[in-house]
């Protein structure tokens, strides 16, 4: 038997009181693609960061190509032929491609020779693997897909034989993801070993040879991909049977609640929304599908009053809503009965340093029931918080705990409780289950459907196509600041949506 490309033996790592990795052993054969799946916080990224020398393990050994190889820092990992493409790219935005590629791998003290050599090598590499990029382009001018190519080129330039990719498809269109997979297969043929971290079971099934499952810091199973199924993997991830389908009755749409007409937004000199029009009715969930960064964020932010629009009109129950003027803010939106679960709970939805009870009033702190005259009524807010925590199953149900001390799922439940408990006429929901464990996902999905069944209108933005397909009554696809088309979930499929997400319309194709 040939030596394994990678062998981990008894890796453990703790961050303060949190045990992120517990006694993990794993081996990956040379020239294969190995998947690692697990829920958020299962310890996948920590494990790979240890392999890449970004963190040091408390205990355990790393063997590369059959040799014990201590990896105290990233330099050692690079020397051992390990390269990593992080979920959030590690690129210097205002440097060129070639500068980013040579950074840390320069040949001498002067830059000029290094740059000349890198430019030549980049051309060769990009032709060999189909990774076309302009070496002199600025990173900030490149699309996300191309930025990812630069990350891969960076690793190839450093002669990486083992490539770790952390959630590589999160920001890609289905078509771009397919391209990436072709590249990975090409790399595999060249004898490279690839580790793919993902939470998308479909990708695991499509491309990996073997797959490991992590749960709560431990590695629970390693199986051949051919011998397993998505349902089985999901069960291994969560530790119990999971319903991958969302259970809901057909919608019974009523009057139009929200009408958006030719909405335009310009941010930082870039037109983010280029005339978006849509309608949502009572008792209906409109899902917005699309790759991150195509204007969904701005759509939510304008409707939520966070940023002004530069043009277009919005009406709520046929009454105009100020989206361009100075009365456009979160307070006036809430007063009109619009709830908003923002895309990023950590930087928008919650004040992480505030205790749970303070967060329950966040955005509604002007509400008379939270105030007595000039002063805030802290006792009333705390009571309300305790009540909401009980009904929305927030754990631990302690109003005095700062928000940062709750898990991702429980933080999201606090936001959901605050925004949905007032039964708003229109609920804006952005990435409701990002970084949330499966138990909380089920809970949040049920809450959203229950609100719809009360006859409320819901705008759902998510980059998870499965979530959009499962929850929406109608699906609109956004690309480059425009709505590319609307489909009914029953009459479409992932391929068709994927094409729309990439900006390809049926007529043009």
């Amino acid at each position, binding site marked *: 038997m040939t030596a394994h490309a990678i062998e981990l033996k008894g890796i453990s790592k703790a961050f303060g*009181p949190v045990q992120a990795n517990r006694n993990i052993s794993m081996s990956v054969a040379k020239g294969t693609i190995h998947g690692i799946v697990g829920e958020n916080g299962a310890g996948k990224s920590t494990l790979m960061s240890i392999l890449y020398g970004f963190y040091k393990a408390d205990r355990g050994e790393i063997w590369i190509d059959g040799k014990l190889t201590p990896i105290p820092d990233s330099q050692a990992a690079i020397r051992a032929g390990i390269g990593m493409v992080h979920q959030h790219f590690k690129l210097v935005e205002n440097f060129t491609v070639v500068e980013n590629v040579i950074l840390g791998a320069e040949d001498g003290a002067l830059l000029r020779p290094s740059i000349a050599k890198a430019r030549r090598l980049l051309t060769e590499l990009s032709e060999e693997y189909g990774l076309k990029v302009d070496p002199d382009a600025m990173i900030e001018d490149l699309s996300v897909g191309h930025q990812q190519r630069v990350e891969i080129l960076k690793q190839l330039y450093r002669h990486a034989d083992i490539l770790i990719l952390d959630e590589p498809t999160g920001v890609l269109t289905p078509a771009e993801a397919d391209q990436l997979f072709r590249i990975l297969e090409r790399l595999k043929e060249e004898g490279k070993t690839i580790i793919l971290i993902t939470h998308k079971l479909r990708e695991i099934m499509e491309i990996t040879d073997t797959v490991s499952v992590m749960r709560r810091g431990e590695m629970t199973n390693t199986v051949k991909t051919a011998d397993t199924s998505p349902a089985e993997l999901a069960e291994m991830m969560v530790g119990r049977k999971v319903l991958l389908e969302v259970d809901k009755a057909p919608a019974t749409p009523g009057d139009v609640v929200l009408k958006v007409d030719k909405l335009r937004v310009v941010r930082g000199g870039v037109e983010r929304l280029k005339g978006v029009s849509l309608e949502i009715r009572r008792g209906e969930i409109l899902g917005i599908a699309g790759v991150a960064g195509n204007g969904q964020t701005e759509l939510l932010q304008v409707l939520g009053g966070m940023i002004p629009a530069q043009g277009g009109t919005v009406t709520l129950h046929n009454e105009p809503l100020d989206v361009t003027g100075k009365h456009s803010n*979160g307070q006036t939106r809430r007063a009109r009965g619009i709830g908003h679960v923002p895309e990023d709970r950590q*930087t*928008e*939805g919650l004040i992480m340093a*505030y205790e749970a009870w303070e967060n329950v009033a*966040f955005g509604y702190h*002007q509400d008379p029931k939270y105030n007595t005259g000039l002063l805030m009524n802290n006792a009333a807010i705390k009571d309300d918080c305790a009540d909401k925590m009980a009904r929305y199953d927030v754990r631990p149900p302690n109003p005095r705990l700062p928000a940062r001390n709750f898990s991702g799922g429980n933080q999201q439940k606090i936001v959901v409780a605050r925004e949905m408990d007032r039964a708003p006429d229109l609920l804006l929901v952005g990435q409701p289950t990002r970084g949330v464990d499966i138990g909380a996902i089920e809970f949040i999905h049920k809450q959203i459907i229950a609100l719809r069944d009360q006859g409320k209108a819901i705008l759902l933005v998510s980059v998870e196509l499965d979530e959009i397909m499962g929850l929406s009554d109608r699906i609109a696809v956004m690309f480059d600041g425009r709505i590319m088309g609307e489909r009914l979930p029953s009459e479409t499929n992932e391929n068709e949506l994927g094409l729309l997400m990439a900006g390809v319309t049926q007529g043009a194709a």
Partner: protein
Amino acid sequence: MDKMPKWADVVLIPLISVVLALVVSGLVVAIIGESPWRAMEIMVRGAFGSAYGWGYTLYYATNFIFTGLAVAVAFHARLFNIGGEGQAALGGLGVAIILLGVAWPHWTIALLAAVLFSAAFGAVWAAVPAYLQAKRGSHIVITTIMFNYIASALMVYLLVNVFRVEGSMSPESATFAEAVHLPNAASFAGFLGFRGSTPLNFSFFLALLACVFVWLLIWRTRLGYEIRAFGHSDSAAVYAGINPTKIIMITMIISGALAGMMAINVVMGEAERLVLDFVEGAGFVGIAVALMGRSHPVGVILAALLFGALYQGGAELQFEMPAISREMVVVIQALVILFTGALDNMVRMPMQAFFLSLRRRREAGARTPAE
């Protein structure tokens, strides 16, 4: 789970930091060849050993409460107001204008007017940097520093060319009318031994009142809730419908007003006229006071008291140990800022590790009998 109990975070860490600052200050004294113990004894005796000492200590503390609160309020909105010095100077200008310009019948009404004018002048001097920060993104730290220098030049000009009494050489205004002199500690607390010459005056109560006001504002009002929310996360504040421009402006106006009111103590309560450089660094001491006091009014009072004692004790020190310059107090102030503000983690990291291991041991101890 938090890594350590709240009391350790709020009380223990600042305390250790201040002790470290004082130990290093002691080392400095030892290095220049004097006895730190003797220096400390002189300072403590000078600050607290007599009604005379207390009078000065509390008088200085009054200044530092105002400037400390000014920095603290801004800190809650994550704004670093280094402009207390200039704002206080402008506050003094306001006091002088209203006390010289109007013939007040009684000090009580004059005090009200002085509060309004000192606060308004200080607020205006803070509002310009605030506006530039909110609307133009100019860094408030740099602009407030610049405004200190501009204020200083402005005050020199006004005192030399406008306020100076005809025929006098010294750059200072005429003395205020007898009727507007604030009662000093001898008249309301003479039974404690304060003499007529003590600088401690009625403004001390005003400072305490300001503490109550700041506490209510920050922790009990909607505005305070918004200020703190904005300070923790401006993006979340926008999500909640809190207007960043409004918060930056209001916070800095309150901050500048508090700094400006420091002038009441010095200009109206003590000097009874406007003199050059009357702020004497109190605006900067406010930074140390706010950092050490964790931006909480109670902490600010305690820290202001410490610095009041340092200033008074430092003056005594210079008398008795001429080898030690009065600037030693500035060194101590710098070290307090350094240890409580910038090197906070140096104390915090080991403390967190300590409390973590304590908890591990406790949990292990709790588990063993069960097994």
